């Protein structure tokens, strides 16, 4: 990561901000962990799709439908190379990370997890990577175990290893926690899980926008993420699955495009990846995701990580000077990946977020879809500021300004 001079940083800020028309300076958007704003390139790509090649892809024998199919499959190729999947057949388009995780639990899970098996997740999982496994274990009579991280949110290799045993058949874990911001050492954990004979599912919802994710390097069996968190439109997401597993899994949704032969007695399934893409696909969404990935690549993770780290550090250092502000998880900015969750003494998180809003700073309050983690952290709810690639020093200054006024505005002297 190269540090930039102040002038270089400001020039980069201006260049990036000019790509995001909604960010007109009238507000500070720090809720990127929830969803991101879209660059013009993404909106233009989607519009261009609908204005020049919209048709139902697959099977069409006319030029428009062929163009639509090409656009869709080009998007698949873009995703494949972005996460370095071995083959395009391993890229399945879904609606969002949640659907992807459910797909894995409904298909791989229902087919291969048996009574007496054990599934290991962590207490820091988002509900979307927790409840599907709770349900599966309930249905199958399997056991669900939660890894508890250390105080600072990290999970040491030895701790992970201590959860392994011959019954463990599946491990599912978030790459970056949407609350603590901590990054789990997926590469090591996947290796250990594999040595233990378990498949490894990675929830990439929060890592994909912030850091390079290489499924071959991490050696995970499944990865699920959402487009809307990486500057793409809502309504499109991705599951990567190892081909050998996808091939032996039953389909998830049944209907058009995922079949080969259908009779009144039954059906056979189409080849990968179509077997898992039932019904008319979201081609416009896939095109938007492809454009978003290209946009992210055009800036590069080198710059994105440096920018986000720089702001996280600046933000946390200021926050750490305020005795009534408490940051969840590590006190080191390098363990936060742009996600800073905190509380303020004497002020309820909902009021904090509402007052930030009065200062036109957008942050999130609540349990962040991680109620068991909140309980583990002994706090019913918190507020979270989360940084995206377009945030600037100025955003952090406004955030800190508002933060310093909150207790006063709530009537504390």
């Amino acid at each position, binding site marked *: 990561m190269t540090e930039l001079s102040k002038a270089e940083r400001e020039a980069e800020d201006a260049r990036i901000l000019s790509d995001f028309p909604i960010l007109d300076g009238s507000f500070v958007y720090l809720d990127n962990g929830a969803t991101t704003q879209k660059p013009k390139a993404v909106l233009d790509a989607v519009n261009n799709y609908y204005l020049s090649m919209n048709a139902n892809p697959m099977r069409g024998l006319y030029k428009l439908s062929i163009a639509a199919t090409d656009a869709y499959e080009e998007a698949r190729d873009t995703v494949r190379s972005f996460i370095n999947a071995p083959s395009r057949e391993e890229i399945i388009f879904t609606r969002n990370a949640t659907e992807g995780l459910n797909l894995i639990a409904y298909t791989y899970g229902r087919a291969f997890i048996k009574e007496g098996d054990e599934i290991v997740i962590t207490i820091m999982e988002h509900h979307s990577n927790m409840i599907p496994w709770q349900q599966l274990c309930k249905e199958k009579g399997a056991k669900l175990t939660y890894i508890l991280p250390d105080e600072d949110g990290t999970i040491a290799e030895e701790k992970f290893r201590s959860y392994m045993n011959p019954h463990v058949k599946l491990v599912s874990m978030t790459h970056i926690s949407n609350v603590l911001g901590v990054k789990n050492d997926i590469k090591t954990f996947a290796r250990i899980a594999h040595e233990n004979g378990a498949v490894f599912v990675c929830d990439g919802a929060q890592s994909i926008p912030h850091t390079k994710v290489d499924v071959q390097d991490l050696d995970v069996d499944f990865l699920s993420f959402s487009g809307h968190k990486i500057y793409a439109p809502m309504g499109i997401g991705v599951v990567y699955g190892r081909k050998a597993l996808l091939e032996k899994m039953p389909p998830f949704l049944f209907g058009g495009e995922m079949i080969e032969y259908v009779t009144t007695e039954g059906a056979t399934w189409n080849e990968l990846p179509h077997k898992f893409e039932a019904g008319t696909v979201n081609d416009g969404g896939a095109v938007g995701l492809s454009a978003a990935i290209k946009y992210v690549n055009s800036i590069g993770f080198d710059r994105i990580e440096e920018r986000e780290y720089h702001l996280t550090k600046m933000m946390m250092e200021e926050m750490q000077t305020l005795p009534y502000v408490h940051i969840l998880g590590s006190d080191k900015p390098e363990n936060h990946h742009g996600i800073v969750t905190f509380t303020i003494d*004497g*002020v*309820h*998180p*909902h*009021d904090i977020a*509402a*007052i930030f809003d*009065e*200062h*036109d700073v957008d942050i999130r309050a*609540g*349990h962040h879809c991680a109620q068991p983690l909140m309980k583990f952290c002994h706090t*019913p*709810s918190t507020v979270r500021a989360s940084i995206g690639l377009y945030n600037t020093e100025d955003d952090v200054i406004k955030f800190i300004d508002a933060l310093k006024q909150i207790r006063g*505005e*709530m*009537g*504390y002297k």
Partner: protein
Amino acid sequence: MASTFYNEILTDHNINPTHKYKMEDATFSLEGVNPSCGDDVVLYLKVNDQNMIEEASFFGDGCAISQASADMMCDLIIGRSKEDALRLSDIFLRMIKDTITPEEKEELEEAGILEDIHHMPARVKCAVLGWHTMGQIFRDADEGKIDKYDGKFEQ
């Protein structure tokens, strides 16, 4: 910065509530919870034979809006009959949802400051938690369902 919704009346009721305590000898008590926000408030009422609210208090966690709203409600209903309290509650709930007349607003006294809450739809449930809990207490009591200290009600 725009004018704050968190004015002095509201923050004062939140930080220095008059009626925030557990009431040992309440006639009725009921826990009201708001799952989406995590607000969790027990409302206590001491009601005499003439259906007069002699004492009202609340206890629990929640945001400033839920706390201040409950405190202002207690202020308002102490010394009133059950019917009167329910009538005021009806005005309050209409104010939050819709609009009321200036005369009606007058009747709500300080609780009238919560009128602007309909600009903050995510907070409506906080503002009405105490009021809904009171309504539920009287409904449950009418049906003989409520017993001291053990009700729980989710909105």
